Structures are given as C-alpha cells and as structure tokens.
C-alpha cells in the first residue's frame, strides 16, 4: 500500500518552477559582476578630494581675512570634479605570489572663486592621474 502523501509529494517535486527571467539575471550580473573595488576607489578618492577642497577653501578664507582691505575678497562659487576615466589592465602577479589588477584613473578638478566687487574670477584647473593596484581574490 502506498502512502498517498508521499505520492503527492513526489508529484509536487516533479513540477518545474518557472526559471528566473533573463532580466533578473542581468540585474544580478550588474550587482555581482561589477568590480566593487573600482567603485570603492572612486568613492574614496572623491571623498579625499572633497576634504582637500574644503581645507583649501577654509585656508583661503582665513588668509583672505587678514589681507589688505582693498584686496579682492574671493568667494568660492563652484567646485567640479569630472567623471573619472577608469582603465583596467591585465592582472599581474606580485612578489608574494598574489595577483593584483593595475587600474588607472584620470579626472579633472576645477575650482572657481569670484570677487563681486572687482568682478574678477580665480579658476584652478587640476588634472589628476592615479595609478593603483587592486588586490585580486583567488579561490
């Protein structure tokens, strides 16, 4: 005599759930195939640059406050950072046997100050070129 519950369980197990759509797989690929360290590098550098820009502005304002009265009083009006251009190169083997991927990131920083009284502008344009090695995890 067969167990009717077992029969239904076997019948259930033979049903084939619908496969996930290609769109879902593509969404997973966007999250799991994206090199996280690349994003991390850019975010870290952006944060560092923002801090540097803030320090520069603070120093400028402070120093400007003790200058001659007639000297231009520049006010910061814009800080721009271009979209980084990221290049990935072939992985290389390090001296300790581990692997790393060389990455080159280039971008430009543009900072602009204006003095409303004299209607003058001060623009600082700085190209940046950083080269780094991202450790690769091997299993």
């Amino acid at each position, binding site marked *: 005599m067969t167990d009717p519950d077992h029969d239904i369980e076997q019948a259930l197990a033979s*049903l084939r*759930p619908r496969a996930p759509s290609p769109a879902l797989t593509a969404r997973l*690929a966007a999250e799991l195939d994206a090199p996280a360290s690349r994003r991390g590098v850019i975010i870290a550098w952006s944060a560092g640059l923002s801090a540097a820009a803030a320090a520069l502005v603070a120093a400028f304002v402070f120093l400007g406050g003790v200058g001659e009265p007639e000297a231009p009083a520049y006010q910061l009006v814009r800080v721009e950072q271009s979209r980084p251009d990221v290049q990935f190169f072939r992985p290389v083997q390090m001296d300790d046997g581990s692997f790393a991927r060389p990455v080159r990131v280039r971008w430009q920083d543009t900072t602009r100050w204006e003095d409303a009284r004299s209607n003058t502008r001060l623009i600082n344009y700085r190209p940046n070129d950083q080269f780094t090695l991202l450790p690769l995890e091997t299993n």
Partner: protein
Amino acid sequence: MQDAHSGQDWRAWFAEHGARLRLIARQWTRSEADADDVLQEAFVRFWKHQRHLPGNPNALVVTSIRRSALDLLRRGDRRAAREKVVGDDMETVTWFEPEADPRLAALADSLKLLSDEQREVVVLKVWGDLTFEEIGEQLSISPNTAASRWRYAMEALRKLITARTHD
C-alpha cells in the same frame, strides 16, 4: 547545495537553483515584480556575505529570501495602490512550467489555493529542501506545527486535485 561554499561562479549556481529560489520568493510576495526584487536583494546578500558561513547554505539563502520578503511587506503600506493593481498576478501568471499531465497541471494550480500557512510549508519542504525542524526555525513555529500544516496541506491538495480532475 554545498557548492555555494566553494569558489563556484554565481551564474552556474544560480542557473541550477534559481528557479526554485524564485518560487520560494514568489509564494511570499504579491506579484512577479516583487518576487524578482526580493530574490535579487536576497541572492546578492547571500552570495556576497553569507555563502561562506558555516551551516546549510540552503537554509541561509531561504532565510535571506524571507528577510527580504518581510522587509518588502513592511514597506507595502506605502505602495498599497500599486500592489492592488499587480496583485492580480496571483491569478494570471503560472508559477510552474506548463504540464501535459492533467493531474500535475491540477496540482500546480491547486498549490495557490492553499492557505498561506500551508503553502509556505509545502514550498519550503519540497523546493526549499528543508526539514520540518528547519522550516520551524524559518517560520518561528515548532517542528510539530510545521508537520501538522504539511499534513493538512496534503489532504487539501488531494481534495483539490480530485475535484479538478473530475470537473
């Protein structure tokens, strides 16, 4: 499912297990779109942070799916109107590939007609490959309660199939 512990590529792992994981996500959500959102969030979390943890990876990924589904449910009030519209998916989109055998087709349709409590036990046992003890941990119920819901579900499915195949 032990492969999840190794360095296997996520695509190969997902190709093997994705369909049943999506079914688990689907039975805890109100629409196809929600099931995709839940599975995406849960699988990314599992693959990035949990697959190397000790224990049964099967239970880990199911826990991750349930957590995402509950999070979505809590946010549900804010989009109740949308849910009402897409909630009709429950009736129109099949959860399984088409079956030529009328008894299997009736079984696939009948699964949706179970109560939520019975259906989740069935799905977790058959497609989640969990024991009653693991199901109890997932749902915060005792293993006996899980087993009891399973028995009631089998009885209900038997009646539903009989009714449908005699229609």
